[in-house]
């Protein structure tokens, strides 16, 4: 099976006054059509940056330094600005973090949807645009009336669904949703996830769900990718991740999940996330790692595939381990 998404050696830096921050470092990822992957990792580890880089939406002082993003056979990195504009939404769609709060308060939902189509498909007829918008609203289980409504007339869950509807207007092959449910209550969360699943199944698209809720990942994703300090340190199936996480950071993450038996026990990971300006040498996780070995301090671990199919970036595995 040909992957619908291939990210190859993607690298992004932010040039700040204090120096160059390496926000994304040699990121590789493959995704098949119909696959759903959760992207998790510490706050500030580069998840949104990865999404933005895939969309070619990194703004200065940020810069894509290297790498390729191939969607459905098209190398996005080699497209012209105009072509890229079209590819956004039709090949790859991004529902940004906090999108539901940035819907325009004074424009009707329908007009915002039509604007989105217009930006990418300027030649489509008005009637077609409307039909498409309504169809999109229906796929996220919103009534056609929402087309005529304003954002403030909608609940949080409905707003989030509108954002998803906008994202799928042009039936993209890859949908990236950045924390779509972190502002929603559990019941609404469940409904929104059911919507994403339904849309994804209908269109056969691949989904990348960025988030922090491991429960959500366990309940609705096929795979989980874990990011730490700008690198993907592990990509595993949900089953592997929750039963046998490989990377020490993933292990610590899984250990820190709240359980319903003993109250008041927290197990965070001691120490601070590293500064991207001065990443630790060797493995960036080594100052906080419980499994640390000598070479972790000096030798940068490479990403490798394990027999189980997991990919991991850690000296504990592979040759020489």
């Amino acid at each position, binding site marked *: 099976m040909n992957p619908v998404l291939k990210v190859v050696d993607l690298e992004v830096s*932010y040039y*700040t*006054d*204090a120096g160059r921050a390496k926000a994304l470092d040699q990121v590789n990822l493959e995704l098949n059509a119909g696959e759903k992957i959760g992207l*998790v*990792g*510490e*706050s*500030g580890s580069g*998840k*949104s940056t990865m999404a933005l880089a895939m969309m070619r939406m990194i703004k200065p002082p940020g810069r894509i330094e290297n790498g390729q993003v191939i969607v459905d056979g098209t190398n996005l990195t080699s497209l012209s600005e105009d072509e890229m504009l079209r590819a956004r939404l039709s090949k790859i769609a991004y529902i940004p*973090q*906090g999108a539901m*709060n*940035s819907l325009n308060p004074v424009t009707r939902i329908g007009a915002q949807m039509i604007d989105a189509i217009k930006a990418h498909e300027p030649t489509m007829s008005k009637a077609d645009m409307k039909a498409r918008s309504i169809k999109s609203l229906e796929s996220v289980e919103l009534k056609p009336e929402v087309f005529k409504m304003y954002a403030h007339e909608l*609940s*949080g*869950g409905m707003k989030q669904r509108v954002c998803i509807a906008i994202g799928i207007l042009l039936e993209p092959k890859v949908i990236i949703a950045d*924390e779509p449910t*972190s*502002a*929603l*209550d*559990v*019941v*609404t*969360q*469940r*409904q929104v996830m*059911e919507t994403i699943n339904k849309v994804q199944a209908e269109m056969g698209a691949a989904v990348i769900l960025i988030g*922090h*809720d*491991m*429960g*959500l*990942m*366990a*309940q*609705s994703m096929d795979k989980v990718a874990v990011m730490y300090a700008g690198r993907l340190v592990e990509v595993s199936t*949900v*089953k592997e991740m*929750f*039963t046998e996480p490989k990377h020490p950071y993933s292990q*610590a*993450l899984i250990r*820190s*999940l*709240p359980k*319903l038996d003993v*109250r*008041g*026990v*927290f197990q*965070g*990971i001691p120490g*601070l*996330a590293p*500064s*991207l*300006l001065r990443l630790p040498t060797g493995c960036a996780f080594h100052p906080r790692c419980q499994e640390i070995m000598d070479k972790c301090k000096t030798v940068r671990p490479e990403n490798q595939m394990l027999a189980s199919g997991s990919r991991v970036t850690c000296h504990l595995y592979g040759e020489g381990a």
Partner: protein
Amino acid sequence: MATLLEFKNVSKIYKRGKTETTALDNLSLTLKDDESTILTVAGESGSGKTTLAMLLLGFIEPTIGQIYYKGKDISLLSGSERMTFRKEVQAVFQDPFAVFNPFYTVEHLLEVPIKRFKLAKSRTEIRDRMAEALTAVGLQPDEIFGRFPHQLSGGQRQRINIARALVLRPKVLVADEPVSMVDASLRANILETLRTLQRNYGVSIVYITHDLTTAFHIANSIMVLYRGSVMEAGGVEQVIKYPQHPYTQLLVDSIPWPDLSRRWGQTDLEPSEDTVIGKGCKFYSRCPKAMEVCKTKPPLYQLEPYQTASCFLFKEKPQLEAESLSKALPV
């Protein structure tokens, strides 16, 4: 026992054209001065959580009822009392994308409140205080100080919010979804920080969240709201482990557990229709157990010493006055 903060039969009604929304419906609540606590306020979107926070902070006024701080109606505070109130009651807001002035650096954002409330004597003291707060929320001070809000990730902004509240060491902290954008391990660290704040510095925390798992671990008591009314309240362990109100049961059942052997949500989801029927139970239209009597307003019933629910399923139990809600909330 001195009360620090008191809501007395508070309602907030928003009018927009002809429609009225009761965002908060006759809530009475007290936080004591000498017994700090962590109270979770849970409930779905639109249930009135943020409204409660805004009222508590004095940002909006109740339509009905009064709010007292140290015995004084907060709408009648004198200048200096107001200043004290502003300092002692702090908030961490829900939307980290909205609250910051985009032209201020992090350093400036943190410095302003310290200076305004004259909490430090020297430059170094200000600096130390800020660095301490940033470290407590897992941020590298030297890396973060010079940044502008748009140069921060979602979770970093959210943590700046918390750090801002920490530098002030308030008496009451209202935290509206403070950790929804950080990972589980950091969430654990930050919640631990909040708990230390409560235990060691006697800060009472109103923790507003939809995340019942973290509420379970950090809070002493919980109040579940639905469309502005208290559905169930009590000790956090009791309410989350043995939810009695059909709405709380739905919430607890919808928790996505990070556990593959536990399937998500066994109960069917009813769409949240806006058909509130008259004066009855607000959950009536979605309730799987709705009865004829539910078309009238259910009072609170006392189920356990530390558990109360507003539901006619428990009409055999003794009633609890709305004004006595806090008796069911352990500290």
